[in-house]
């Protein structure tokens, strides 16, 4: 017999109250991706694989730089959201919390590194 009140046992087991926000963010970034993915794939694909000088020149043009920058932020945040859902579904407890933090940290690292490289190439 556990001497726990009903309230104590229930605490922390309900909704985290962030599901709706997550769902809406995924919906918004999904709509953004429908526009961004075609723009990004064909733009970035054209720039990929050229010589060093060609790449520097390519990303100093505004259109490729802006499309790449948008994809770095919107795309990676969307994929991070996707990973968070998978972590919440399959990894639980402390392991899940740590993995969730690690994946989010990795995503932001990618965004920061990508934006730094992009700015350096563009300017």
């Amino acid at each position: 017999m556990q001497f726990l009140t009903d309230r104590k046992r229930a605490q922390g087991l309900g909704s985290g109250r962030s599901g709706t926000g997550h769902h809406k963010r995924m919906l918004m970034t999904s709509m953004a991706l429908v526009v961004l993915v075609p723009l990004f794939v064909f733009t970035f694909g054209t720039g990929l694989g050229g010589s060093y000088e060609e790449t520097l020149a390519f990303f100093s043009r505004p259109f490729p730089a802006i499309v790449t920058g948008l994809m770095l932020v919107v795309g990676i945040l969307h994929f991070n959201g996707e990973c968070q859902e998978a972590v919440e579904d399959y990894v639980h407890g402390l392991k899940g919390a740590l993995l969730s933090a690690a994946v989010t940290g990795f995503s932001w690292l990618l965004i920061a590194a990508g934006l730094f490289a992009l700015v350096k190439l563009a300017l």
Partner: protein
Amino acid sequence: MADVNRGNRPLSPFMIGPYYRPQMTSISSIMVRITGIASLGTAALLVLWLLSAATSPEMYAWVNGLLTSFVGDVLLFLGSWAIWFHMFGRLRHVIWDLGYFVDIEPAETMGSLMFIAATVMALFTAIVV
């Protein structure tokens, strides 16, 4: 206290495979998740390429050589298929969220369309780019 076991309930099992036949609805849905996670990996590759270009010509030559090698070509082709599939899959979510085509038959049709469209777009990308 009749419900002492509260909070210690079993989680729902993973259904596809042992309990449930794979179907277009379940497989197209799970592929959206897999391609979404894989796209974070593609993003990491592309960021590495951008960083190498921002670092030095030598680093760039190495990473660019890697991405334009046969293995790099295959990886980028699969990566482009994944990102196209994910985009179409997420478009399906948007359509569903707006309340359209929620029945099984249109959902299955959209699932097939996602596989076809992603393959067509990935091949088109490989040819054009």
